[in-house]
């Protein structure tokens, strides 16, 4: 655990060093939070947005990218993916309780999924432990700085999120091996047992810290347990939870469980039945993380429903469209358009689902998710409006640096040998 903390400190230093200057001039700017600026300019200096507007004075020496006729929006955010690591490493499925696993330890910063996801205008993702375990590992938030050192990708200023999973996956994967959980009841027990033990662990450490603070030198520290060390942080609300749940009954159970242990549910992922309990989601403040139109690929996914977004919206839920896969992560904007097919929701409402809403779910909405002065210079450039389904992403910029340029990397680019 100490190692982990030291690592995190180093990483934030790394990301500051990569900052750069650039101005995008002449495009339609979709700020997300502050309306649309026609023929506008976004100025980025030292990696941060320093101006957004019509009459922005671009300081001498700042490189200018002419985006006349193009559409500029904040870099897209995906609050549930498994990219940037080997798929064989995302599930430590040997035990249903593995909070000692940290996804930041296995980031592959030149993984091909980063290259392909960047090409869809995505700049920030939360890459997650899989759903094999009731309590999986700690997820990691990445800026998709393809090819840089892993520590330059890792974002460490939101609270980390612990992955949990209920429903079919943990009970099948562990139940088939003849151990708990093999039922939903077993899953509830496994979760409760783990957090109860962690609570006792925390109490011992609290007692020890208190004794130390009061000057007692002879007290011996309790034994370290890296599993309970993570859950202790959850109990201290220094870490939150992203739980994989399909069914409405389990959503209700999980929210009650979080109240029972006074822990923070930040996102419910694969939230297929979320629309059935939209009021509960809204009241708890948890983010809905889900897909636009997946359904029926297994029993607990059978009620997946693209028409459910309007219920979630009406109840006031923070909605994030997730990819959960390397391929869908390349066209989150098409999934936003699809949500409009099934629901009477505004352009603004659905674009938020792939920008500021997932930013909130990452607790990074002060830093990313919209084009505002002071925020990170993370920008996606489209040739048409991103909700026009015949648009394409032509450039992706992270903290002022171009990380994807279709003109350089597309099939037609000279470096690619021209179109076949």
């Amino acid at each position: 655990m100490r190692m982990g903390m030291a690592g995190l400190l180093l990483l934030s230093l790394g990301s500051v060093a990569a900052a750069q200057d650039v101005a995008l001039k002449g495009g339609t700017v979709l700020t997300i939070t502050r309306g649309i600026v026609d023929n506008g300019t976004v100025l980025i200096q030292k990696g941060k947005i320093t101006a957004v507007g019509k009459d922005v004075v671009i300081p001498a020496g700042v490189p200018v990218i002419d985006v006349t006729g193009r559409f500029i929006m904040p870099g897209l955010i995906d609050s549930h993916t498994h990219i940037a690591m080997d798929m064989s490493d995302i599930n430590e499925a040997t035990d249903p309780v593995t909070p000692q696993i940290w996804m930041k330890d296995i980031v592959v910063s030149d993984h091909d999924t980063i290259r392909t996801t960047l090409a869809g205008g995505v700049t920030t993702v939360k890459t997650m432990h899989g759903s094999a375990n009731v309590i999986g590992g700690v997820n990691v938030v990445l800026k998709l700085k393809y090819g840089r050192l892993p520590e330059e990708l890792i974002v460490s200023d939101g609270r980390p999120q612990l992955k949990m999973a209920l429903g079919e996956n943990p009970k099948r994967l562990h139940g088939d091996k003849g151990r708990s959980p093999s039922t939903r009841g077993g899953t509830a027990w496994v979760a409760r047992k783990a957090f109860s033990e962690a609570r006792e662990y925390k109490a011992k450490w609290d007692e020890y810290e208190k004794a130390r603070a009061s000057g007692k030198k002879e007290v011996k520290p309790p034994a370290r347990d890296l599993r309970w060390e993570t859950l202790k942080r959850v109990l201290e609300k220094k870490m939150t939870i992203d739980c994989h749940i399909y069914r409405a009954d389990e959503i209700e159970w999980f929210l009650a469980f979080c109240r029972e242990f006074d822990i923070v549910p930040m996102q419910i992922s694969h939230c297929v039945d979320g629309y059935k309990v939209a009021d509960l989601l809204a009241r708890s403040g948890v983010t809905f993380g889900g897909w636009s139109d997946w359904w029926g690929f297994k029993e607990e996914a059978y009620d997946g429903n693209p028409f459910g977004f309007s219920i979630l919206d009406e109840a006031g839920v923070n909605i994030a469209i997730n990819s959960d896969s390397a391929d869908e992560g390349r066209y989150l904007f098409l999934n936003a358009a699809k949500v409009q097919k099934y629901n009477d929701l505004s352009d603004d409402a659905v674009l938020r689902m792939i920008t500021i809403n997932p930013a909130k779910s990452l607790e990074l909405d002060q830093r990313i998710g919209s084009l505002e002065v002071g925020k990170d210079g993370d920008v996606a450039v489209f040739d048409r409006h991103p909700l026009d389904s015949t648009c394409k992403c032509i450039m992706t910029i992270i903290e002022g640096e171009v990380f994807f340029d279709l003109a350089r990397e597309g099939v037609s680019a000279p470096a690619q040998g021209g179109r076949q």
Partner: protein
Amino acid sequence: MKTAAAILLVLSAVPVFTQEAILIRNGTIVPVVGAPIPGGDLLIEKGKISAIGTGLAAPAAAMVLDASGQYVYPGMVAPLTALGLINPPGSDSDINEKGLSVPQIDPYDALNPEDDSIEVARIDGVTTALTAAGTGSLINGKAVVIHLDGNLATEMILKRNVLLVFNTTARQANSYPSTLPGVLQFLREKLSKAREYGAKGESGKNRERDAEMEALQPVLNRKMPVLFQCGDEVSIRLALTLINEFSLRGIIASASADVLKYAEALAQKGIPVIWSGTTALPRRWEAVDLNYHVAAVLAEKGVLFCFNESRGQGSRGVRRQPVPAAISVAYGLSEEEALRALTINPARILGIDHLVGSLEKGKTADVVVCSKPLLQLSAKIRAVIIRGRLIPLTSIQTRLRDKYLMIVRERLRRRESQGLDSRR
């Protein structure tokens, strides 16, 4: 369109029937063969399209749908699905019968009109689909083309015995054939044996009936095409080898950009392609947008192709058909060609283009009315007509929405009436 919406609401409560006549008035008619007709009318009588033009008069009994500001298309044709065989979860699906070679299996025998996936696909504009018995084995069963409407299997059938599905990637895990050359040998031996079997029959000699060998005869005498489920380059080459050796009427289905390596040969030999790779991830060494361009290149080279976005035959994602079409347009395919690749092209590939796939006088009245061009994924489907019947725009999903919208609103209301903040 307000009229139409009102009529639709009434319709969802009445039993199945076919309207005598429907006049769709004043929409942008996109026949997909020939130019769009702005402000056009389309008349449907007795299940067929009886007139397309402007200023058509409504027959006395006709229901009139005002399509002002809307777009009117032929229903989409999904070229490779398992609609009607995908059972609800908890029961096993009826896809992929066991055995390396099962050409005698006919999906007609298991077709389930109650499959929820059918309604879900049709209210998004898919009106016709090929349902294949399987794609996972070396020699799979037959396929049927169905209308996505009907309460009995017999009512759904448009055509039976449409094709056989071979799979040139079906290496076996621990038994023969476990390599691609083995796959080729296996298929070659089966076809050779079937040819001998057929020759015996022709010479009039007494023979013991063999269902498997019988089922292979129509592909050897070119009465039925073979759909080759392929993957990368080598498996495509194996398919072309067999098509050539046995003079088969072949169709190539693939999600690999390697089809481009054979585009000229495919165009020249008239071998069509069912392309399902637009949204597949590129390989590590390929340009990020390579797969997005494949459809445009196929069109450019003159290959007859259609889209298939089913993502695995048992997938319930048939409604996603427009997704690859929209992406392909962004990367160079013309909108006209993209629309054809969702409608008339799959109909041609399946040999049903004289019946469905375009808006033409005399064709089956399979019509979709949208709020925006179909290639806009935000386009709302305003009306779906199959064989002249106005389809209720309902599915398991609209029913769940209606149910839970009431339940959630009721809970919110209750909380408010208790003086509690409904949102906290």
